């Protein structure tokens, strides 16, 4: 009997631990809501003021019921006015808004929605398309709304799911940009005139910005690690698609990608502008020990929030000398989703809230401004307020070079870092040797991943190989 005790204990501890992880977490934080107005559709006789051009919100429309909304906590600062106004326009709709910490959001939302306890409307990101849309957890926007969205927003159909329906649209685009520390830049005798147009010029400037004491790097000229997202750009920068048309093959194993990757690897291993064991890019940029980093525009919002006095600048990713232009991986932010379990009435209310969001420039302006996004709303394309933001200005000027690849699997970043970049940077493995393993690993992930890349739908797709 005693001998059975330990194996039983092992059994309980092992599978008990695993099972505990799979228990549906119950609701944690909840926030407040407010807001309102009236109105909404696009075809009925208006009863109040009409907001919007094609997507139209009738402020006088009479609606009643209760609507539950989830949003991530940090987004409260720019999304709360939407909820406040909605409550004002729709006094008979009880709006319950819950703000959830970002770290918990993506664990809770799928579980809560699938468990039948989820909100009617929720913040969404396209990287969770496979998880949420393909699992049938989201409801498509109505044909009427989609038709109106096509007239007010760019690229609506690029975000169609495999079933052809639109479950969300891009609200703003954001591709990688180069951040630079203005003080370190000035210390090195550089001015805005020195902002490089090509990666080759960039490399010289990065070397100029690097500060060393003996072999030790005190200030990294350019830090891109961990480069889980930047690696995708290496393919586009070399003028190559990332995926095969069916989305089942990663197309990195070619000379153009190898050349591009070798360039960035050499910046670390040959030029010594950074070290693979240097603190990561975001942290070291905040600490002032990295003069330039690559990152998405959202990082500007983080810097402004955490370090309001920190002076940084942004410029577009350069192009390679032998290329006529650069191409970037567009990482868009997308609109809120609707719970698939909403009945007809709840769906109508959910779309009514989204209609106000889409129709008015006001909320979309805040949405783009606070998250540093290039707007996809056509009426905001020439907005002076957005254009006056130095980060958004760079994005907007360079937006034509941005390519939406599609909802790539989350696992891919880890696959590429650990099977491609780590072996090359940390273990001295050649790119030729590491690349087939990395491609095989990603292809293994893609084999079970149900999606269709959107690269070919890009307006500049014919320029890529």
């Amino acid at each position: 009997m005693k001998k059975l005790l330990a194996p039983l204990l092992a059994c309980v501890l092992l599978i008990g631990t695993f099972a505990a992880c799979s228990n549906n977490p119950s609701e944690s934080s909840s926030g407040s809501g407010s807001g309102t107005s009236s109105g909404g559709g696009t075809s009925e006789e208006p009863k109040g003021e009409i907001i919007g051009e094609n997507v139209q919100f009738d402020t006088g429309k009479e609606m009643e019921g209760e609507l539950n909304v989830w949003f991530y906590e940090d987004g409260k600062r720019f999304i709360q006015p939407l909820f406040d106004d909605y409550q004002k326009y729709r006094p008979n709709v009880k709006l319950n808004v819950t703000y959830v910490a970002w770290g918990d959001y993506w664990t809770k939302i799928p579980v809560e929605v699938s468990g039948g306890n989820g909100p009617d409307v929720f913040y969404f990101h396209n990287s969770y398309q496979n998880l949420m849309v393909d699992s049938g957890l989201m409801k498509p926007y109505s044909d009427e709304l989609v038709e109106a969205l096509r007239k007010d927003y760019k690229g609506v159909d690029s975000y169609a799911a495999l079933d052809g329906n639109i479950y969300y649209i891009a609200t703003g685009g954001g591709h990688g940009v180069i951040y630079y520390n203005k003080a370190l830049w000035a210390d090195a005798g550089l001015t805005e005139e020195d902002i490089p147009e090509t990666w080759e010029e960039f490399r010289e400037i990065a070397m100029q910005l690097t500060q060393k004491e003996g072999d030790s790097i005190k200030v990294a000229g350019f830090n891109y690690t961990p480069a889980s997202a930047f690696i995708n750009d290496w393919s586009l920068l070399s003028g190559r698609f990332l995926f095969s048309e069916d989305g089942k093959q990663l197309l990195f194993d070619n000379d153009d990608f190898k050349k591009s990757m070798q360039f960035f690897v050499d910046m670390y291993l040959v030029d010594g502008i950074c070290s693979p064991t240097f603190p990561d890019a975001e942290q070291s940029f905040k600490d002032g020990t990295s003069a330039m980093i690559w990152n998405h525009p959202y990082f500007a919002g983080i810097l402004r929030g955490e370090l309001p006095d920190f002076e940084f600048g942004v410029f577009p990713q350069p192009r390679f000398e032998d290329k006529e232009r650069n191409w970037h991986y567009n990482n868009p932010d997308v609109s809120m989703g609707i719970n698939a379990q909403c009945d007809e009435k709840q769906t109508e209310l959910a779309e009514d809230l989204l209609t106000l969001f889409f129709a008015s420039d006001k909320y979309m302006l805040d949405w783009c401004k606070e998250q540093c996004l290039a707007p996809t709303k056509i009426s905001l394309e020439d907005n002076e307020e957005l254009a006056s933001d130095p980060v958004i200005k760079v994005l907007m000027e360079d937006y034509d070079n941005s390519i939406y690849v599609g909802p790539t699997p989350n696992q891919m970043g880890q696959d590429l870092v650990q099977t491609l970049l780590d072996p090359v940077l940390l273990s001295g493995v050649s790119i030729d040797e590491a690349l087939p393993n990395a491609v095989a690993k990603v292809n293994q992930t893609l084999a079970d991943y149900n999606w269709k890349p959107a690269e070919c739908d890009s307006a500049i797709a014919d320029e890529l190989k």
Partner: protein
Amino acid sequence: MKRGKSLTFKQTLFAWSAVIPCFIVICIFVLSPIIQTFYGSFFNWNALTGKMTFNGFDNYSNAFKDPLLGKTLLNTFYLTFFAVLIKTILAFFVAMAVSSVKKVQGLYRSIFFLPTICTMIATAYVFRFLLQPEAGTINGYLAALGISGPGWLLDPNWAMPTVILFTIWKDFGYVFLIFLAGVQGISKDVVEAAMIDGATGFKKVRYVILPLLRPITVYNVVTQVIGLLQIFISIVGLTGDSSNASTGGPMYSTTTTGLYIYQQAFISYKLGYASAIAVILFVIIMVFTLLQIKFGDRKGDF
């Protein structure tokens, strides 16, 4: 064998009424998930929709063909073997030393047990910053001594030894306390008798104390092995980043099977496959545990 007096109906009723609630709780929260995990390992299982498609032994055959699973198992065994070995030997000798101290023994117990009661994820994060190769405190001190510190968690060759060091530091106190209780529980008469017979120093430890501590040693080893074969929280704290791209890295050198199960289940949402790996790991732990008990219980005193 003498049989005890049989219980009255009232006593039996009372006993069952005490046991049944616990049994129900165990069935719901322990046995049911175990059975579901085993059942789910034969399905392509989407936990979000609840859709389960039977695929026979596909998850198991995929697991045996998955080179990353093999690597994670090797990592797990490597970590478990060295962490248990070093921790057990160290804890035994420190317990011996502390048991011989008459004063401030409580202070030693507190100091050694302190890391055990600290939050795992918080201490892992602190260690990660301390061990940062180029900006961390540890390498800063080493540099002041003229020593070039290693890459610790960012060097594929050093990453797992670093995790082992962290594990030893974190869990040492628990193993130490068990040994200390065991050493202090040894009858002084037995030790004195052995010393009269000429067993002093090493001989006393080898032929008297160690055999008497065998049950405690086996207990310590078995519980450590069971815990370490499932390790994953500390790995996430030590190696994870905001994008999770580095978790279990570099080059999967710290990806343990426990972490791999978590990633398959809750990042890739392949619950069927994750269940199959969990069952495989369960069988491995079961075999190891039985072997440890068999070889550690030769005199039947466990």
